[in-house]
């Protein structure tokens, strides 16, 4: 199949899976889970294949014209290095989470509805990663967000509902900001296509419209990405949702809706000025330090991981907003690593919850002997995320810190190192309380997680351990092309327009 014709499939297949699940899921047992696992597996294969085919495309970009209408008049879907990276990340995590959910969701009622919402969320995220049109970005963003609001409330207990309400309110405020920004940019450029918008903005300058829209985007997308002044919804939503959904939210949703959209618009459409980058760097460092400290005093395992997520998001933002080739490379590499590590950690927390019925670290203890596999994979993920040398997290953090030093931000580099120490101590606290020590009385008779849950945890752990290999020359293109797209800035417009004419 030609790579160009594969592009719309990333939206069509999950959408079709959701539709078929809602039609037949109620009548046939196991239809929904088989359908979702098969469709997300297919998407994983296709995304890797599309990413490899992309290397041979001229300029490393493919533009699909929806309905044959050429942009700037029609909507286009753009597959370039950055979109390719996000597609692989989203579908990778989505596949393993889908496999895990087959076992994990047994304790909830109405599994088919879960898989319907899950497929819709993946559809929305794939759409966000591929789209080349501002309004289309907004629509896909809302599809993914609304599905995730509903998924956070899936347990319909008191805590789930409260967290979901908070998340939905904050998410809708963020969407309003983003929509207002899009409206302002449309009024100024009279186009909605991202490439065309970048072209118009490159020769028409404005005193206040574009900076105002930029600040609206900054606020809206930071709310979605949960950078520290805007983070209030994240710990609640992540700790209350079903574990597989926490893994999706933390692993990919905040990255696609928040970081990807923000950097795509700031770097490729508006053209990132020093003001935006400085503000982002500051938010990033604040997130690293404050969320790192808050993570230390949590006793709920998933809440601890949620705060650690905010801290790691800070690293990604810090790396990307340095704006140097090394910094952007490090940020995107950390984005990839973090999605694998953090989803694995949340799946571990889910396995603990599934087997022992508690998420509280103080009530658990000695699980190392009772749940050996969960404990081993948790050890790998914890070491990787806190930056212990042979694992992938070490390399990405090292690159970010080196990039900070290289561009003269010594204070930020120091903050990044301190944040890493906080992460290490928070996760070692979790390990000590939950997995090491004496087996408590009420933990006796606990068994390890079910088969499908084990499979996906082992696969993700292998990827954590082997993630550092991505730096080797045969695989390096994967991150390098993505950072190249961001570094090209607003000349993105010319590249897309040239690809349209082809």
């Amino acid at each position, binding site marked *: 199949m030609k790579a160009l014709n594969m592009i719309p499939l990333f939206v069509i297949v999950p959408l079709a899976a959701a539709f078929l699940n809602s039609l037949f899921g109620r009548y046939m047992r196991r239809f929904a889970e088989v359908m979702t696992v098969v469709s997300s597996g297919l998407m994983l294969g296709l995304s890797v294949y599309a990413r490899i085919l992309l290397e041979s495309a001229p300029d490393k970009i493919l533009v699909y014209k929806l309905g044959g209408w050429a942009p700037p008049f029609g909507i286009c879907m753009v597959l370039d290095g950055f979109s390719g990276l996000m597609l692989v990340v989203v579908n990778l995590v989505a596949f393993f989470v889908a496999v895990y959910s087959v076992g994990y969701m047994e304790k909830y009622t109405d599994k088919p509805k879960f898989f319907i919402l899950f497929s819709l969320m993946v559809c929305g995220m794939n759409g966000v990663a591929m789209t080349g049109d501002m*309004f289309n970005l*907004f*629509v896909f963003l*809302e599809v993914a967000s*609304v599905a995730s*609001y*509903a998924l956070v*409330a899936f347990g*319909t*207990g*008191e*805590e789930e*509902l*409260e*967290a*979901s*309400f908070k998340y*939905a*309110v904050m998410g*809708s*405020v963020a*969407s*309003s900001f983003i*929509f*207002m920004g899009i*409206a302002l940019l*449309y*009024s100024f450029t009279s186009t*909605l296509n991202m490439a065309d918008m970048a072209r118009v903005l490159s020769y028409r300058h404005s005193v206040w419209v574009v900076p105002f829209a930029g600040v609206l985007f900054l606020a809206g997308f930071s709310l979605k990405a949960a950078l520290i002044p805007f983070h209030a919804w994240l*710990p*609640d939503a992540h*700790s*209350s949702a079903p574990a597989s959904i926490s893994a999706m939210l933390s692993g990919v949703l905040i990255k696609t809706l928040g970081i990807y959209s923000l950097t795509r618009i700031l770097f490729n459409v508006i053209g990132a000025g020093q003001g935006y980058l400085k503000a982002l760097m500051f938010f990033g460092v604040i997130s690293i330090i404050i969320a790192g400290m808050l993570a230390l*005093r*949590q006793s*709920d395992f998933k*809440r601890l991981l949620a705060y650690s997520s905010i801290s790691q998001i800070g690293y990604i933002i810090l790396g990307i907003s340095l704006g140097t080739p090394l910094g952007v490379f490090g940020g995107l590499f950390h984005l990839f690593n973090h999605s694998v590590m953090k989803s694995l950690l949340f799946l571990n927390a889910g396995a603990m919850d599934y087997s022992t019925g508690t998420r509280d670290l103080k009530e658990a203890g000695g699980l190392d002997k009772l749940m050996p596999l969960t404990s081993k994979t948790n050890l790998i993920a914890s070491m990787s995320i806190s930056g212990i040398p042979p694992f992938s997290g070490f390399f990405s953090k090292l690159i970010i810190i080196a990039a900070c030093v290289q561009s003269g931000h010594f204070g930020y580099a120091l903050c990044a190192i301190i944040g890493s120490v906080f992460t290490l101590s928070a996760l070692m606290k979790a390990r000590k309380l939950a997995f090491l020590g004496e087996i408590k009385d009420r933990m006796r008779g606990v068994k390890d997680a079910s088969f499908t849950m084990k499979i996906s945890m082992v696969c993700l752990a292998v990827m954590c351990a082997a993630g550092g290999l991505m730096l080797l020359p045969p695989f390096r293109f994967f991150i390098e092309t993505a950072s190249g797209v961001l570094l090209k800035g607003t000349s993105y417009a010319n590249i897309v327009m040239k690809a349209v004419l082809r």
Partner: protein
Amino acid sequence: MTLYFLCFILFSIGLYGVLRKRNIVKIIMGIAIMSYSVNLFFVLLGYKFRGRAPIDAHDQGIVNMVDPIPQALVMTSIVIGLAVMALLIAISIRLYEKYGTLDITKIRRLKG
């Protein structure tokens, strides 16, 4: 220009409702006001004084039309807003069943 500023004021009223009100229903109303004000702003962007509907009729040239794109976009945005609103109201009904109150300061089991 005045109309645009009035839209921004409406937006701020919605934001005030979300941030300051304690009743869940009033917070939802604040969100509704915010999304309506953005929709209104977007439609007004395409408006032209004494413009006519953008229909390409048989005997008329393409002159003096309002911009049809914002209308199409706002239609989509209204539908999305409806979905969010329905979900929020459904959650608030369940919250009332669980907690027996609509006061957001009394609904706080999650902290830390």
